[in-house]
């Protein structure tokens, strides 16, 4: 399959009063056409910065692309002018954000907000854009779209607003949809609906999705491949099955262990990962997870491990996979049962 997006050794940093914060430190991943890639990690691991870098929505300054490249359809995103980026944003790559309550303009009707992108990118007249807006609202499952399109965001519920956001994002049939924690601010039943909707729409339109989340339930539900981020780096990447059933990185084990399981008796405690994420203004020299890793060795603190290819699709950066390292089995809590993982 063709690679539609290639992110290669991307580093992004921010100048702050406290010094230079290196939010993303050498991230590499690829996105196939029609694929959903989940980027997983806790707060501050650099997932949102990575996502916004792809659309060049990082304000520069204070942000800075320190190194690396982002290639969309073989063209370098980082070398484009602001004007060229305006032609890409919303047309080829679009984005939905975490909080649907605040990501729609409160003083503009939903219809106008959908129409803006259509008028800009597809040279539609206001009337055409209005009709297309109704179609889009219908597509994302909003009942009575003819009336709804004239309403303001405050007249929509949270789930409906996120549907409207998806309609805005998909208006111009983008090749890539970046969803930055699209379900975090929604309650669980609505989460499932939104994920189903995104999957249905992906089948219909063939859009590739970059799904950013910290919720492994969402990953299991929606993604084909997963990249696990920690401390501004991708520590493990692989197919969903590989990440859930054959995880190799202790951080992935920790993430899996901190997720409640359906088949358990219900009285076992959730395993939290002790400690807190590294300070990216002064990032550790070696593996960023070393300070919190129960298996950390001396080498972990000094040198960042190379990626070990465990299969064609799975790559893990961990010293435990070095042939000189002691053999470590994943803890009980990180073993995902035979049944399908649910959100």
């Amino acid at each position, binding site marked *: 399959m063709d690679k539609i997006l290639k992110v290669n050794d991307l580093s992004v940093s921010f100048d702050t009063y406290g010094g230079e914060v290196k939010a993303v430190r050498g991230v590499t991943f690829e996105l196939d056409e029609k694929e959903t890639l989940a980027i997983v990690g806790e707060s501050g691991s650099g997932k949102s910065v990575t996502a916004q870098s792809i*659309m060049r*929505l990082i304000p520069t300054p204070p942000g800075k692309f320190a190194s690396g490249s982002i290639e969309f359809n073989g063209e370098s995103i980082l070398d484009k002018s602001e*004007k060229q*980026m*305006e*032609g*890409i*944003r*919303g*047309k080829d790559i*679009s*984005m939905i*954000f*975490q*909080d649907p309550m*605040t*990501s*729609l*303009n*409160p*003083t*503009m009707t939903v219809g106008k*907000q959908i129409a*803006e*992108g259509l008028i*800009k*990118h597809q040279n539609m007249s206001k009337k055409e854009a209005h009709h297309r807006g109704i179609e889009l609202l219908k597509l994302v499952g909003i009942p009575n779209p003819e009336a709804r399109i004239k309403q*303001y965001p*405050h*007249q929509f519920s949270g789930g409906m607003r996120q549907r409207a*956001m998806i309609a*805005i*994002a998909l208006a111009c049939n983008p090749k890539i949809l970046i969803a930055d924690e699209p379900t975090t601010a929604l309650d669980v039943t609505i989460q499932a609906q939104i994920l189903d909707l995104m999957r249905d729409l992906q089948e219909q339109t063939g859009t590739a999705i970059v799904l950013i989340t910290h919720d492994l339930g969402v990953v299991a539900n929606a993604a084909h491949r997963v990249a696990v981020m920690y401390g501004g780096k991708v520590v493990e990447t692989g197919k969903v099955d590989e990440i859930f059933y054959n995880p190799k990185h202790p951080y992935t084990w920790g993430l899996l262990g901190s997720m409640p399981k359906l088949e358990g008796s219900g009285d076992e405690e959730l395993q939290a990962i002790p400690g807190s994420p590294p300070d990216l203004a002064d990032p550790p020299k070696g593996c960023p997870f070393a300070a919190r890793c129960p298996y950390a060795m001396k080498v972990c603190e000094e040198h960042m491990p190379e990626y070990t290819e465990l299969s064609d699709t799975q790559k893990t950066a961990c010293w435990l996979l070095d042939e000189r390292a002691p053999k470590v089995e994943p803890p009980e809590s990180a073993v995902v049962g035979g049944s399908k993982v649910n959100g």
Partner: protein
Amino acid sequence: MARYLLKRLGFIIVSLFFIVTITFFLMQAAPGGPFASERKLPPVIEQQMNEQYGLDDPLYEQYFDYLVNIVQWDFGPSFKYVGQSVNDIISRSFPYSLILGAEAIFLALSIGVLLGVIAALKHNKFGDYFAMVIAVLGISVPSFILASVLQYVFAVKLQMLPVARFESFAHTILPAIALATTPLAFIARLMRSSMLDVLHSDYIKTAKAKGLNERVVTYRHAIRNAILPVVSYLGPLVVAILTGSFVIESIFAIPGLGNEFVVSVTNRDYTVIMGTTVFFSVLLLVSILIVDLIYGLVDPRIKVAGKGDK
């Protein structure tokens, strides 16, 4: 909508009743009277004058007479200017204040909003510092000082504009600038901070993610949301400019209502004090109502139609 307006008008009438009552009794509570001056009047004449104007009636009778008159929008005769009614004074002097005030509000709003927007867009750059220096100067320099400086520079030295009086448009420029500066500075600061808030909000990011350019994002998405605090400041601003103009009016020798108001207080001209107070109160209450209506137009989340529907 009609019900809402009726309700608001009802509130206005209730507020006015309290304003009239409180002002009436406060004024009476102060010692002295309209005919107490340095040169003592002969008691017979004073007696006659009091009788003529109804000042010897019991207080409650004066109060009820006054209420009845006010309902008919009749503020009675002036005690000081014989033969002139308060209504005459207001209708003669208010147009000056109105023109001056309208010019000042226009200046304050347009330039204030513009400065605020520039400051926010050029946050922490030269444009920001420049706008905020103007704003700080505008807030800290009292209007009467600015007025004299303007007169000295533009009228006396450069001879570009007339120094005082109120005869043509050219006469209104300097007083309008002097009157507008403080609210202008205030609006600029207000606009800057709310604009900064809005520019960091999620929906601005959404708008940018649609591929809209900076200018469209600013005009279409940011300003309308950022201007709300300025709109709510408009109500008090209108009144502050119309009533607060007496300093400027006396510096520029403009026979406006603000001037009349202050003079009436020192003259103990009861009916003029009451009349102008009521008149300004009506102005304040109506302008607040208008601001609320505008608010509903700018921000669809605020429904003026009242209860029931969200």
